[in-house]
């Protein structure tokens, strides 16, 4: 084990009272599918305001589940989720923008690009009302920021993969989200479109938006993110990219190995060498 590896934060270190500078804080989170199968165990981390973090891990590591728990779409069995210091049950929870996995969306749904972006304004519009001028202006500005103004009246199924991702980022912008979650935004997106998405995320970073992104593509995550959280049903490693992506850590997350914790320090036990 090299000295470069930052030890995973133990639950004891994370379980402190919510700090105002914390955007997202997860304490002892575990979650399971409706079938009872466990997905996440003892997940602990906290994301600072404005921090850019990538959650990396193999398929089936529980990345989407983790995001659903943060958003409040899926219940967690234990622990606590705080977004800007508020739990889901509090009334004045801050706004979370969610860019769903491409596979989670029915692209043949008959909506236009501008209609999707306007969906980000629903809370501002309020019940029993239609979108007003301010809402349309916010939607237009958001589309402009992601460079899709020309396609506003197009149907969403006419867009390329990268454009589809940008539409949902625009929706989060129109929503004026404090925290932006992107679930596998690079799947089915070419390198050029990927660069375009990164440019938008850079701008958001400058504006102080907290960005949390999940990907199984390690290459894209390493260069542009302040921090990586390596996930495989539990947090395998957490820290700057160069330290998290050590061979030992990757093997622990991607190979058939087991990782245990003792006094806050990770100990990797090689149980199997099946996957190089």
């Amino acid at each position: 084990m090299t000295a470069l590896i930052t030890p995973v934060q133990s639950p004891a270190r994370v379980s402190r009272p919510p700090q105002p500078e914390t955007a997202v804080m997860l304490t002892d989170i575990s979650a399971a599918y409706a079938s009872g199968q466990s997905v996440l165990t003892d997940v602990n981390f906290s994301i600072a305001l404005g921090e850019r973090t990538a959650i990396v891990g193999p398929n089936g590591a529980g990345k989407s589940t983790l995001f659903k728990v943060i958003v409040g779409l899926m219940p967690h069995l234990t622990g606590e989720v705080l977004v800007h210091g508020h739990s889901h049950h509090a009334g004045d929870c801050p706004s979370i923008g969610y860019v769903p996995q491409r596979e989670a969306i029915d692209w043949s749904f008959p909506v236009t690009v501008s209609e999707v972006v306007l969906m980000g304004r629903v809370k501002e519009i309020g019940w029993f009302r239609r979108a007003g001028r301010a809402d349309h202006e916010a939607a237009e500005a958001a589309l402009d920021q992601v460079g899709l103004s020309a396609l506003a009246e197009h149907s969403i199924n006419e867009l390329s993969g990268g454009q589809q991702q940008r539409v949902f980022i625009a929706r989060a912008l129109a929503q004026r989200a404090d925290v932006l979650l992107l679930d596998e935004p690079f799947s089915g997106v070419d390198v050029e479109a990927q660069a375009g998405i990164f440019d938008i995320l850079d701008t958001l970073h400058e504006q102080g938006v907290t960005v949390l992104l999940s990907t199984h593509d390690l290459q894209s995550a390493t260069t542009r993110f302040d921090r990586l959280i390596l996930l495989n049903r539990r947090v395998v490693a957490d820290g700057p990219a160069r330290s998290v992506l050590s061979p030992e850590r990757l093997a622990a997350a991607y190979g058939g190995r087991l990782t245990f914790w003792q006094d806050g320090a990770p100990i990797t036990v090689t149980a199997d060498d099946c996957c190089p």
Partner: protein
Amino acid sequence: MSLLDPFQYTFMLRGLAAAAVVGVVCAVVGSFVILRGMAFFSDALAHAILPGVAVAYLIGGAGGPLLWGALGAGIITALGVGFITRGGKLKEDTAIGVIFAGVFALGIALISSLRSYSVDLAHILFGNILAITNTDLLTIIGFSVLILGCLAAFYKEFVIISFDPTHAASLRLPSEPLRYLLLVLVALTVVVSLQTVGAGLMTAMLITPAATGYLLSRRLSRMMLIAALVGAGSGVVGLYLSYYVRIASGAAIALTTTACFAVAWGITRLRRH
């Protein structure tokens, strides 16, 4: 024989009015039904209101509170399916298949104890649009206004929970109550449409016009408009034609919506080439 012949009969005029109103409501509600993949659910629901109708029949005969019986059964089953499929233990269509066949059989069993069994069953299954009274028509219009009003009031929320449930959750929208409301609206629509095409041909009003609109437009509002025109138009044209062709009015209406769909499908094929 004049082309205006059918219009001299009051029962025909009432039937035409009912067909037009029901055509619009079914098309608009049906648009959400097909976008949410609930076509099978709505068809099954149409059958599951049978025991409610039967019980109302047993209580009050032909003049009994049929509509309210159907309404009660419809809402109970809609909520029941919503509840049973919530845990995710059974796939939704499996649960629907099991529950509705049982409930439908219960309805047939109840109706079969009546003396006028075959006539009554035929009316419930295939509609009896020419027997619509003034009270029936007013009830249909009243419920239609209620259904369309609810859809208009919660339109943007219904679109969000149908298109992107995760976004609905991140906005803290009450997704579950909205989903149940939509189920109840589908049940109401089915009940209101029962007299026009009957339980057996319900999907011809609920699904076919909406599917036609879906083929012809990539925008939900326009899809609903086309669907409403197809639904109302088919209701009127189908009933009108049945006067001359001498076929069952419900079947005539259902065949007309199907013909509209076939034309729309042909248009989309041509567009692609």
